């Protein structure tokens, strides 16, 4: 009787061990085949301030005759009234616009310490085609 009980106990132990191994293997197998990735996600807010605190940037122009147009071209664009205290050294883009707000040419430069910047369009832009000017300062 004792032998029979011992044999039964051994069989149960063996069965339990096999079952445990089977379950572990199955779970491990699932875990090994599931590759889950994630991109990082970070968020925050910041205020975008303007360096132009005082003064109003104003575009003035010089013209010169250009036989390739033919007619008068914008020889230079002079931007005055830049905030030389806060915008000094920052990148500036000046765009001459035409009919339908089309971009005739964008000229870039750096705000000088004087606050007055002279830019030269190249290639030539017909003065007659200019209907507006846009200025952006960033940095």
């Amino acid at each position, binding site marked *: 009787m004792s032998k029979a009980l011992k044999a039964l106990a051994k069989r149960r132990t063996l069965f339990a061990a096999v079952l445990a191994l089977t379950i572990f293997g199955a779970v491990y197998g699932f875990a090994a085949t599931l590759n889950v990735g994630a991109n990082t996600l970070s968020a925050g807010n910041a*205020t975008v301030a303007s360096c132009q605190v005082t003064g109003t940037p104003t575009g003035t*122009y010089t013209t010169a005759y250009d036989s390739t147009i033919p007619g008068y071209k914008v020889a230079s664009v002079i931007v005055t009234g830049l905030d030389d205290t806060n915008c000094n050294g920052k990148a500036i883009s000046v765009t001459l616009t035409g009919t339908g707000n089309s971009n005739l040419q964008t000229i870039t430069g750096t705000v000088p310490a004087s606050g007055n910047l002279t830019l030269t369009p190249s290639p030539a832009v017909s003065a007659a085609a200019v209907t507006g*000017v846009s200025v952006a300062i960033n940095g």
Partner: protein
Amino acid sequence: MKHLTKALGLGLAAAATFAACAAAATLTIGSTTLSAGNASVTACTSSLSATRNVDNSGNVTQVNVAGIPTACSGETLSVTLVGSGNAALGSGSGTVGSCGTTCSVTITSFGATVSASNVTGYSFGLTGA
């Protein structure tokens, strides 16, 4: 008492973990300055015409631009004498003064002697004061 201590410890650990995760998700960012604006570039006139005076040698002595709108008062008028192939033969400029119904500008210097026979047209440029 033991159970209470364990529960408190577990809660504290969970709170610390969530706090750490929340802190990692918050991103502190900065921004450089950005300024932008637009302005219209208007013209005080769309049409100008000129006449010229010629001396006995056949050279242009002066160009007269009349009928300039008063809106152009104070601006600088540039005139180029144009020849074959749109070449610039000579240029001069003058200031549009204050005037009555219309303004006129007379230009007498072109930077070179220009033979009237070579002039095929005029080109004008007006820039604001």
